Structures are given as structure tokens and as C-alpha cells.
């Protein structure tokens, strides 16, 4: 009975983790890309050739790191919850 319940928690954790981990890699790529593209078109529109592109790219990199940081925090939280459910009841 206890083993069965534990297995259920585990398998749901795996699916959750796979979703989060699978998105982390694309987050690192897409955020800088979106920032750079937005900056490039704003440059074309406003005629400030290299500057908004650079600013957009930097903002995109920061946003990408923030997204990865949030994903990492989510994984840590899930792990802590899992540990508390698994080991916390003993004491």
C-alpha cells in the first residue's frame, strides 16, 4: 500500500520534471532571439541602427536567464515537497 502510493507520487513527478526540463533548453534560445528580433525591427523603425538591437539582445539574455532560474526554482520546490512527503512523516 505504502509502496504503491510512493510510486504514484514518483511517476507524476517524473512527468512534471520532464516538462520543465524539456522547456529549459528552448527558453535559453528563444528569449534572446525574441529580444534581438524586437530590437532589430525597432531599429529599422526609429533609425537608431545598432543600439536598440544590442539593448534588446541584452534584455533577452537577462529574460532567458530569469526564465531558467524560475524553472530551476520550480524543480527545487517540487523536490522539497517530494522529500517532505516521503521522509517527513517518519518523525
Amino acid at each position: 500500500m505504502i509502496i504503491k502510493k510512493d510510486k504514484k507520487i514518483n511517476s507524476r513527478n517524473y512527468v512534471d520534471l520532464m516538462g520543465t526540463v524539456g522547456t529549459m533548453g528552448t527558453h535559453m534560445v528563444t528569449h534572446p532571439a525574441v529580444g534581438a528580433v524586437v530590437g532589430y525591427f525597432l531599429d529599422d523603425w526609429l533609425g537608431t541602427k545598432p543600439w536598440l538591437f544590442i539593448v534588446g539582445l541584452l534584455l533577452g539574455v537577462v529574460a532567458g536567464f530569469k526564465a531558467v532560474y524560475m524553472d530551476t526554482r520550480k524543480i527545487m520546490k517540487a523536490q522539497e515537497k517530494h522529500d517532505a512527503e516521503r521522509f517527513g512523516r517518519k518523525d
Partner: protein
Amino acid sequence: MAGGLPHPVLWSTLAGMDHITINGAQHEFKHVFYTWIAMAILFSLAFLVRGNVKLVPSKIQNVFEVIIGGLEEFVVSNIGEDGRKIFHVLIALFLFILFNNLLGLVPGCDAPTANVNTNAALALFTFAYYNWIGIKRWGFGYIKHFCGPFWWLIPLMLPLELISHAARPLSLTLRLFGNIRGEEIVLILFFLLAPIFGTIPIYFLFLLAKCLQAFIWFMLGMIYLKGSLEHAH
């Protein structure tokens, strides 16, 4: 054709639907054709189930009840009772993407999600839908979701949040496209190397991967909707 490799045989070629001509310009039509096939399968299954819904479910009704009921419980346990109002969109996306992905495993068919345009359309729909739900729920106060925890952080957080929201449809598109297209290419390569014995074992791996990709889309849509439904931090 996946990545320049010739597909052995395609039903769309036999049906003459590989390309169509609109206003004198030729367009590739293969993936739209297979989207129609996936839609036909889904519609006929839906009518089959709907035609004789019983209190004691038959076989096919049982399968659908397990899938839809299980996922509804999953959504409600994550979002709360609000989840029931938006669940129909999520399950429609899940089933549509699942059948589109699985069409890639049927001999003579290509997965419509192996074309980046299908995925971009689905991702833009998801993006528009969760923003619309957020605006409907919060009105103008939806902008608080983009402003971060402190008021003096707004000049930094607003561009960051806008970029990260704009990156969501892009990352949804590219993930699904890369996974499904890669699997199609690997399947064709294995088929060229060893027609039967090469492809059968890899089918089981890809069956899992394609279900997982559809589920990841479902789960991400659920997370985005949860973000737009719950109170800003």
C-alpha cells in the same frame, strides 16, 4: 520529404494533393491534407462515441472517459475549480496534437506537426487564448501580471516580462517542430537502412515521445492559463 530525404511513398502523392495552385502560384499542400485526415479521424471518433453514450460505457467510450476524465482531474487539481471552464480548449489541443503526431507513424503518412506552420498556428492560438482569458478575468488590471513584485522594478520587469511572454509561442513552436521533424527524419533513415527490422523497435520509442510532446503542450498551456487566471504576485 523530410530534410531532403525522399519519403518512400505518400498517400497525398497518390491522391494528387502534394501541391495545389492558387492564383497561379504553387503551394505545398501535403501537411494540410494530413491535417484534414487527422480531423476526419477525430470527428468520426467523436460522432461514434457521441452517437451511443451509455451509462455503462462501451469499449471506445471507456477509453475516452479515462483520457478526458483523468486529464480533467489533473487540470482541476492544478488550477482549481476555474480549470473546468477552460478545460475544453486544453483537451481539444491535446487530442488534435496527439493525433497529428501519431499520423507520422502510419505508413504513407507524414505528421502535420513536422511542418513549422502548423505548430506556429497552434502556438499563436494558445498565446491569444491565455491572454484573452487573462484580460477577460482581470480587465485592465491584467497588466499587473507584467510588472513584477515591486513598483520600482517596473522599468526593468516590464520589458523582461513582455519578452518572456512573446518567447512562449516561439518556444512552443520550435520544441514540437524539432521533436517531430527529427523523429520523421530518423524513421526515414532507419527505413532506408533496414526496412522492417530497423523501424519496428524505434516505433515504440517514438510512440512514447510523440505522446509526451502532446502532453507537454497540454501541460504548458495549463501552466500559462494558471498564470493568467491567478492573482498577480
